[in-house]
């Protein structure tokens, strides 16, 4: 009896640990060399995702803005702000800024932003309400199970293409119907989506 309890207990503990923020980093804001606030830039200033993440529609990588991009504004604004010192130094010394990765997938996973964005998966679907993040945190576990939840039933997450970059978009009452309709419209081959070869090379 005690034996059984021990086994089950151990199982439960392991499970709990695996799904805890300690392991998953979910909702854990990451310290950055510069405390960049998406909230301020996106929600406050209304800058579009693609202004910085330029290649999100055309490449596997969304693209992280080079220092130059920051300087398009910050060569004029807050030029003296000590907070931005690392950025200025980066440009001066031509050494890149070392940001901390927030959303990180294992190296054997080949995620492609462009296809998701083009098939109507919104930024917020995976990255959460980035526009509400003063410091960016991981909104989802990014566990394979989590990926599969959507790959097995994309209709639950898919949205109209034109809403992809809209952080304020929320699922309508008829998401189920809309989802099925969009899946058909965007030719999402649902049976193929769970093939290992889709993400693993």
């Amino acid at each position, binding site marked *: 009896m005690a034996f059984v309890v021990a086994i089950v207990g151990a*199982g439960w503990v392991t*499970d709990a640990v*695996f*799904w805890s923020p300690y392991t998953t980093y979910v909702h854990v804001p990451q310290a950055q060399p510069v405390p960049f606030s998406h909230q301020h830039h996106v929600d406050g200033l209304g800058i579009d995702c693609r202004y910085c993440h330029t290649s999100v529609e055309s490449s596997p990588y969304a693209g992280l803005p080079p220092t130059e991009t920051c300087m398009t504004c910050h060569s004029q604004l807050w030029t003296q702000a000590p907070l931005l010192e690392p950025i200025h130094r980066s440009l001066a010394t031509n050494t890149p800024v070392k940001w901390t990765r927030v959303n990180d997938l294992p190296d054997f996973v080949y995620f492609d932003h462009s296809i998701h964005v083009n098939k109507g998966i919104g930024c917020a679907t995976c990255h959460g309400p980035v526009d509400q993040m003063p410091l960016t945190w991981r909104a989802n*576990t990014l*566990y*394979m*199970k989590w990926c*599969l*939840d959507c790959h097995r039933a994309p209709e639950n997450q898919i949205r109209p293409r034109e809403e992809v970059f809209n952080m304020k978009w929320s699922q309508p009452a008829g998401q189920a119907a809309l989802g099925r309709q969009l899946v058909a419209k965007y030719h999402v081959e649902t049976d193929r989506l769970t093939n290992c070869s889709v993400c693993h090379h």
Partner: protein
Amino acid sequence: MSERPEPPYEVSPLGYPARLLAPGETYESVSDKIASIPLARHPPRAWYFGFLIGFSFFMLLLLGVTWLFMKGVGIWGINIPVAWGFAIVNFVWWIGIGHAGTFISAILLLLHQQWRTAINRFSEAMTLFAVACAGLFPLLHLGRPWVFWWILPYPDTMGLWPQFRSPLVWDVFAVSTYFTVSLLFWFLGLMPDLATVRDRATNVWQKKIYGVLALGWRGSAAHWHRQQTAYLMLAGLATPLVLSVHSVVSFDFAVAIVPGWHSTIFPPYFVAGAIYSGFAMVLNIVIPVRKLYGLERLITMRTLNNMANVMLVTGEIVAYGYLIEAFMAWYSGDVFEEYMMKNRAFGPYGFAFWALMLLNVVIPQVLWLRRVRTNLALLFLVALSINVGMWVERFVIVITSLNRDFTPSAWHLFIPTFWDWAILAGTIGMFFMLQFLFMRLLPMISISETRELVAEPEKAER
């Protein structure tokens, strides 16, 4: 016939050993003989000797496993095409040995074979240790042992389940179930004896420990009633397992398309082989131990003779298996099967095949002779030959089938490395170490059941 000296035991009218129990044994004598062993302050000197040998080889195992986990399975001789080597050979071999235990305790119990009494405790213990050894290998042979649990069904973070079409998954269930049931069965039978030891213990610690293990057995009628019922139920439960486990193990091969593996005869002939080697191992242990602890009066010649008979029968089944394999290879007219058989007998590993025939088929035929069956030394040697033979059989099945299968361009030899041998020797060491510990610490013959024989001699002589 008359001039032949009388055998040192009572014989039946047909001249076979008659008694399961030497005459004049009483409750007391039985309990004394058996219970005194674990309670003794010092075991016989031979015990230390045996234990130390076992222990040192066990250390070799630990060394080998450490190196294995550091470098990877590449330290073995395996390659492409021979991707399975000693690990699987040993696995199948140990599982096979493990079979005797349950067969003896469960099936013979249900068949009211009283002669099992003298040896069931041994063989059950042996089963547990053998299965423990076997259980190591599926883990060790993995390329990435640190993720072995992916083979178990549990809700993981990947949203994946095992691939239930694979015999390896069936193995996991078969072996673990078998181990659990054997363990319970063994412990259930052990309880009354643990109580006896507890009662006879003088040392307070021994009293405490055996007391805990006995789970408060008081020998009341109620206790006996429940124990007996549970015992029978478990026996019923274990019986199908004896057949299932090795059938499932044989599926690892039979399900594959490799010539030499892909064969429907595998399940029965694996099970027979298992019992064959199991009994051989019991004999290899019992014969010396019987001498060592002077248990000749409890483990009588009749028991040994019966075991020899069982080996003879299973041995013939195994031989039939070999015959059918060869016949099928020819009868199928399949080029791959034909070549497989040719390669087995005359290929680079031909020596193994002929060794197998000698050890497993030719030598055991001497068991037809009563004189051999009742001659301890010879019986011991035959059992030994069978144990080795059964290992060679698995070698032949695994390696010679793989080293030359469908595509000639890929054919390659397998040459075992030092670590292949080290880990095999290591598990043997582990097995005997555990065996010796068992003999030191627990009553190695069932006191209660032996007493039954004292109480109901007619039952014993049936």
